[in-house]
């Protein structure tokens, strides 16, 4: 067991599409554990902590990936007790108790409610919980980091360093270039060891997707090394020399370029002009000034919002998508994401915009589900603020006109006085651009309403001091859309589209973050 034999060290974990590179130790462990689970099994997760790597079987029940509570109890030293009288299940850590109720997609963690994508289910004598129970409820009860990386089937525990790594090999004439993107930036060394190169990272493990080589005579292949937290590049017969350079990335990611040169009679050719900006491997391109994004899960608490025929509530859908979107944005773009609510509670419309303003958010995305008296109505819509009903004051603000106010010592000074409730007036153009980006991304993944972009005097948008849109994700009153909105697949599609739209907005030319041009406009630079 070379990986686990070294205390505190975990070797490379490779996931799809390079599953054939899985270390034998891990494969053996997977085989043992997957044979133990009953019924339809999903690929197990691997729980990584500083001192161990342990498999955690997963099962798909009703289209939902689930962990057995007994497995979690063994791994995390939990006490699970079923209270048949009260009809609940309590999961106790040393300090906290989580209460689960059959039939309810909610967990109470020390009295605080968190939502789960599905209720706990019993199969025989065993109870199963959705895998999101772990990061949402268990992490809080244990007071530790539990990061679930679904694509790579990893569950990271505590302060373990497992950078994500993705690679690409290009043939560039007499050389082959391997680009490794790593997030976050991790110190590393590249050294030659016989007919291979070893890239070693200062990490506890690697979460890697490695490429196949189109130029085997220069690079035969890239695989996990026997050495911990390292990858090996097997060199081809034409290999003569190599060079390496680091390209600093943004958003906590970096690129390592390793160029393998062929033995030719010619003098080493200069590197041909490489594609200037290849597409990002980890989708971690520079964030262009987006640091903080506020996601507003519409409605909440007694204010349920719209309701579907089967009882699906808008407030639950918005919260579920908001949470998924937060994880996706944080993981893929490395931005700070704040939710206006992370539980089923009432939050005032003013408070929502104020939260974004006080955190100097760069974007405000309000998530809603639509409703119609007509069940046939369907499709997503994107709204940004209309100033028509806010009178001349809003127009004046939108024009960026300042106001001369008297100052101490006589005279006057041109300063900007904006009523808080008019803050959005200065961002109408950017909000329109954001709305177009969101609409464009949504269109490729979910059904759209015939009027997909609209302007309206929406209360939650008017006070936002940053580009802001309200997304109606679909009609909860349409029976088919109600099912879609409640499904993982549809919610994940929405999240993917919204992440894409943030990337598209970020990458707009001409500085999308610039406020409406205004002379002597102090607020546009404030704190940015």
């Amino acid at each position: 067991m070379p990986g686990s034999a070294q205390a505190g060290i975990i070797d490379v974990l490779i996931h799809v599409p390079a599953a054939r590179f899985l270390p034998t130790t891990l494969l053996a462990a997977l085989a043992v554990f997957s044979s133990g689970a009953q019924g339809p099994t999903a690929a197990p997760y691997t729980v990584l902590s500083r001192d161990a790597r342990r498999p955690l079987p997963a099962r798909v029940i009703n289209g939902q990936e689930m962990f057995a509570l007994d497995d979690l109890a063994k791994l995390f030293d939990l006490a699970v007790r079923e209270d048949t009288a009260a009809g609940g299940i309590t999961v106790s850590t040393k300090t906290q108790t989580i209460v689960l109720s059959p039939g309810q997609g909610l967990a109470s963690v020390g009295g605080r409610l968190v939502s789960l994508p599905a209720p706990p289910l019993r199969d025989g004598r065993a109870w199963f919980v959705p895998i999101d129970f772990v990061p949402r409820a268990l992490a809080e009860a244990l007071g530790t980091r539990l990061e679930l990386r679904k694509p790579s089937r990893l569950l990271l525990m505590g302060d373990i360093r497992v950078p994500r790594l993705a690679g690409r090999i290009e043939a560039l004439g007499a050389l082959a270039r391997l680009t490794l993107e790593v997030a976050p930036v991790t110190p590393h060394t590249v050294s030659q060891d016989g007919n291979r190169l070893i890239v070693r990272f200062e990490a506890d493990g690697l979460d890697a997707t490695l490429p196949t080589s189109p130029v085997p005579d220069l690079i035969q292949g890239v695989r996990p090394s026997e050495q911990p937290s390292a990858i090996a590049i097997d060199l081809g017969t034409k290999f003569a020399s190599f060079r390496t350079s680091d390209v600093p990335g943004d958003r906590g990611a970096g690129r390592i370029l390793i160029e393998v040169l062929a033995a030719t009679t010619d003098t080493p050719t200069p590197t041909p002009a490489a594609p200037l900006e290849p597409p990002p491997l980890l989708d971690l391109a520079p964030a262009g000034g987006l640091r903080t994004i506020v996601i507003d899960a519409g409605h909440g608490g007694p204010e349920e919002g719209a309701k579907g025929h089967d009882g699906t509530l808008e407030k639950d859908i918005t919260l579920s998508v908001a949470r998924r979107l937060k994880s996706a944005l944080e993981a893929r773009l490395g931005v700070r994401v704040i939710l206006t609510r992370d539980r089923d509670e009432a939050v005032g419309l003013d408070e929502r915009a104020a939260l974004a303003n006080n955190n100097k958010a760069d974007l405000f995305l309000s998530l809603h589900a639509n409703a119609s008296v007509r069940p046939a109505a369907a499709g997503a819509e994107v709204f940004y603020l209309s100033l028509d009903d806010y009178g001349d004051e809003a127009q004046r603000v939108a024009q960026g006109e300042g106001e001369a106010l008297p100052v101490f010592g006589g005279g006057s000074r041109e300063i900007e006085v904006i009523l808080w409730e008019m803050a959005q007036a200065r961002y109408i153009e950017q909000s329109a651009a954001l709305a177009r980006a969101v609409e464009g991304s949504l269109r490729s993944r979910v059904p759209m309403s015939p009027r997909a972009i609209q302007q309206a005097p929406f209360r939650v948008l008017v006070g936002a001091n940053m580009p802001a849109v309200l997304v109606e994700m679909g009609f909860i009153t349409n029976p088919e859309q109600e099912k879609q909105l409640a499904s993982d697949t549809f919610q994940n599609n929405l999240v993917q589209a919204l992440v894409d739209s943030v990337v598209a907005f970020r990458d707009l030319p001409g500085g999308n973050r610039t406020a409406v041009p205004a002379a002597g406009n102090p607020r546009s630079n404030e704190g940015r």
Partner: protein
Amino acid sequence: MSRRAAAAVAIAAIAIAAGWLLFVGLPRWYGSRPLAESAAARNAPAAERKITATLYYISEDGLALVGVQREVPFGEPVDQQAQRILEAQLARAPAPLSSAIPETTTLKSLFLDGNGHAFVDLSADARVRHTGGALDELFTIYAIVNALTVNLPAITRVQILVDGKEVDTLAGHVDLRHPLQKNLKWVRAEDKEGS
């Protein structure tokens, strides 16, 4: 002297009060109810007198308002006419269209200020029986706003109240803290009338 001065002040005060009662108070008192009665009496011979107004309903696909020409009882002065129009707007929608306003909603009162702003006070059902959708909320609001502003040029903006109070929104989306102006973009173009 001081008694005479006090008497003079008292007389002046009585005169002012009497004058106010005569020229302001009584007309106002009678202006609301008896005036309406007299209007009804005046209209009695022409009880069937109607005007044609454009009212707004939700289209069959649920995605737009549709303007429909309908006959509405005549009313005078303009606040009376506004009331008749809104009562007609709140009534059942002509098939196959749907009402944009929750069906049990009633008009509690309607008054105009001197600036062309109408204040429309709806019963609580406008909120509690609403579908809760942002689009439906826009339709509810702009059916009312457009029914008044399109048919009565004297009304330029409409503020919607619920149970006599200002509200932030009807269903959590549309800002109702300000009077809203006519907006025909929610009305499907081919059906747009009376604009």
